[in-house]
């Protein structure tokens, strides 16, 4: 059994899985800022096991489209749920961009796992509901510092 231990370790290292963001320590792979705000981040997990972390959903989307990666390489896109701070499946999340949000890179987008939370947020702060494809289109049309 001991003989196979190194092999299992290698297999483990390669199996892709999300990694919690280490706030205050990890830096955004797109804009290089250290990630401190627990409301706006995201993560791309590749099938190779490599994890990229971001401080702003806009950074994550721009990073992906400017890189050589294709969707085939990606195991999972994750974003931070605005209400719980948990990492959730980005492709199934609900997105809002609003002038009342101040995200680290000023894309000012937040994500929600549950549509009722998103609706409640819109009632208070304005903005329209978007899905993953729509938020990708939106970010790609804007440069950082959209105002």
């Amino acid at each position, binding site marked *: 059994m001991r003989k196979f231990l190194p092999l299992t370790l290698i297999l483990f290292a390669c199996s892709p899985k999300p990694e919690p963001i280490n*706030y*205050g*320590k990890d*830096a955004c792979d797109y*804009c*290089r*800022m*250290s990630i*401190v*705000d*627990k*409301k706006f981040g995201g993560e791309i997990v590749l099938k190779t096991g490599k994890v990229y972390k971001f401080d702003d959903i806009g950074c994550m989307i721009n990073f992906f489209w400017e890189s050589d990666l294709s969707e085939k390489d990606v195991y999972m896109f994750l974003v931070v749920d*605005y*209400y719980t*701070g948990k990492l959730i499946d980005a492709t199934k999340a609900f997105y809002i961009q609003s002038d009342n949000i*101040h995200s680290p*890179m*000023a894309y000012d987008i937040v994500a929600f796992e549950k549509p009722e939370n998103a609706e409640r947020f819109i009632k208070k702060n304005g903005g329209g509901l978007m899905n993953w494809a729509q938020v990708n289109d939106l970010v790609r049309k804007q440069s*950082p*510092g959209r*105002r």
Partner: protein
Amino acid sequence: MILIVSMIKVCDDCKFKDLKEALKLTNRGDTVLVVGGKYVLNEVIIDKPLVLLGKDDPVIDGNGKYEMLIVKSDSVIIRGFIFKNSGFGFVKDYSALRIKNCTGCIIEGNRFVNNMWAMYWENSERGIIRNNYIDGGRIKGAGTYSGNGIHLWHCKRMLIENNEITGHRDGIYFEFVDSSIIRNNRSYKNARYGLHFMYSNDDVYYDNVFSGNGAVAVMYSKRILMFRNTFKGHWGGTGYGILLKDVYNGEIKDNLFYKNTIGLLFDNSHNLKVHNNVFLENGIAIKLWASSTKNKFYENDFIGNTFDITTNNVSPDVVFVENYYDTYEGYDIDGDGFGDVPHRLVRVFSVLTDMVPTLYLFLKSPLQDLLETLEKAFPTIIPSLIEDKRPRMEIINYGKNGKFKQEI
């Protein structure tokens, strides 16, 4: 026109004992003098020009639940108060003092202690922030819940001087702030950045001391002047003296970079002049990413750094000229003060560690010496030859007229 202004006094034995009630009775231009005492305020709004004077350290308290004071008028002066214990929230941002749409407000000589945000300015101009002591007091929580000390958003022509800021996320934060001055501040041990520019143009910061923060970050900004500042003790994987990201047309001069993991990081930053700085005992003095172009480095001192320059590749238009390097091994036969043979800036070991970081294990080992000697004899690995054709033989800035030494 006759202008009638009056002074309203608030204290424990005065007619007015409650600051909030007193503020309701004021007229434009009045002065409110507050002598001692503690006042719990919850989003109290100042909507006319007033002078608020604190004597004997009156405390404005948020009881850990509230945003305390909101200024929504021009020409408000607040001086001599202690703001403490603002609310703390995961979703809502609480600021001890919020200033909105204000021209000509002055906030000076106050203490801000244990607040999420200390000051949050929005859409304001020609304001002065002076002589304040600001302590977030929550450095142990890595500041991830904490907000910034002095936070400016969509402001212009602001002056920020003589403040001391510690224990916040960013000491001073600029987002969309133009034509402003930051001088003589001390910003230390903040969880993320001592000073942070985002999308801000035509600003200048000088004579500040930044120490023990994550870094100072200048990002997505144009025409920023940075001079006579000290950047020291920014250690760690994201520790930089200055992190330059998407910066255009700035100038960095007469600064001291002392004991930072990386003194200056250039990422996609262009047209910067970097001169007369001292890089002393940093891990890497300057890290240049290939995406940065047209930067010029001259008359700087490189002393005691593990590596002076590292780069993944360099665009041909980068210029290093007439700097002093303590690692220069050439000679000056003609005696003009400049070395007669060029100084190769990138050392082979720094190229290798850039590719394989674990090679840092062999730093200062015989292996490194061997590689350096081999590379000198038969240059093969170093991708592009950047060199300083006129390296100085003598130190230029460090210690001249006592310069820089007092900061260490």
